[in-house]
């Protein structure tokens, strides 16, 4: 009799600081040692944002709404090639970031929450959502996370939004999700995480 592969686990790691990718890598190391095979699905796996940064000089940059659409396209790519195959093979996958970071950035830039929720309706629900912050001690992560990319793209569009304000507002949204129990703080050192 064929054994049915147990469904894998989707773990979202969202957050606004550059330490998020390092936190996800650390979490993945812990998961690998405990649960076996799995992997990380990082934003820009499709290369959309790299190509965007290399746009011809003089081309108007994207607005926050266009960026959210492009992030959704990148996420659709990750779901098709990385996330769904891992889950169906019974493996774990850490998605960094998933949907809450872009919602936080989008809302901080003035996009309606309702629109963002509907836009990302096509994504599978994560089994666990973590919030990693700059305050966590996960080593020195390189710059260049989604937040930085979002901010520089907005600056290229001539948007006058204050980057510090945008970071602060998006962080407030993620913290409010934490308070409501919708997302958990990723503990420093990760070892205490229960899956």
């Amino acid at each position, binding site marked *: 009799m064929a054994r049915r592969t147990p469904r894998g686990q989707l773990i979202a790691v969202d957050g606004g600081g550059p330490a998020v990718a390092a936190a996800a890598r650390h979490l993945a190391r812990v998961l690998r040692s405990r649960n076996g095979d799995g992997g990380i699905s990082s934003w820009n796996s*499709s290369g*959309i944002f790299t*190509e*965007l940064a290399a*746009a*011809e000089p003089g*081309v*108007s*940059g*994207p*607005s926050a*709404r*266009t960026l959210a*659409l*492009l992030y*959704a*396209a990148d996420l*659709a*790519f990750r779901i*098709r090639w990385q996330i769904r195959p891992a889950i169906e093979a019974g493996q774990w996958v850490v998605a960094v970031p998933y949907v809450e970071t872009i919602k936080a950035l989008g809302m901080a830039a*003035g996009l309606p929450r309702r*629109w963002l929720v*509907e*836009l990302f*309706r*096509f994504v599978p629900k994560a089994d666990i959502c973590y919030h990693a912050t700059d305050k966590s001690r996960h080593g020195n992560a390189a710059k260049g996370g989604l937040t930085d990319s979002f901010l520089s793209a907005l600056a290229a569009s*001539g*948007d*006058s*939004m204050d980057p510090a304000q945008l970071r602060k507002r998006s962080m407030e949204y993620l913290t409010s999700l934490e308070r409501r129990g919708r997302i958990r703080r990723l503990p420093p050192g990760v070892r205490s995480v229960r899956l």
Partner: protein
Amino acid sequence: MGERGLQRWRELLKRRDETRGLLVAFEGPDGSGKSTQRKLFKTWLKSEGLPVATTKWNSSPLVKPLVKVRKQIRALSPEEFCLLHAADFRHRVETEVLPALWQGTTVIADRYLFTGLARDAARGLPFDWLLRVYEPILWPDQVFYFSVSPDTSGMRISATRQPKYYEAGQDITDLDDPLASYRQFIARVIREYESLALAFRFITIDAERSIAEQHREIREHFQRLERRSWPDWNLEPVADWLARQTAAGYRPPAAR
């Protein structure tokens, strides 16, 4: 945007409403002859002394290169196809269409968001989600739908070229023959277009008639076009755009 904010933009838009340009969309399946009609229409408007600009589907200098490379390697799922075209559309609305309309230029769209809706719905994506993706929708003043049968569309296309992979819908039909796939796919697209034409009251042009007859009919409809008020009708997308322009330092003349 709150009600107070909207009220402020409503007043500004009202002052601009008389001088804004008109947005006219040309829609229809491949091979319906809409590009020919669009060119004739543009020439006529220019001869009438109107400033005119054209915007074409999938032509944003920012997003088009991303789409092109992914189409070449046939790497797009229906969701990615939809979202990238929606990003291209949004970028053009914000950087080409709205600035031109605001300056009083009439904009002719050679395909508008209805192309995305018809093709993506034909690919099996839920229609209510597609409408959300394209929000806030800048509704055109007039939409001409060039109606042809799937057979006519197939014949006209095959007479000049072989349809490309996504144009033929081979990503969803799984057929190896592009033309056979095109015939199957375009029938679905036309069904979606016909539903849209009813729901959104397009002006349907029988595109199986002569070029001259169609052009005459388009002129007559355009001359009868009644200007609808932007503040009542397109407040959200225009206010959204204007708010960002203002924040970036643009001072609308009417606001001084």
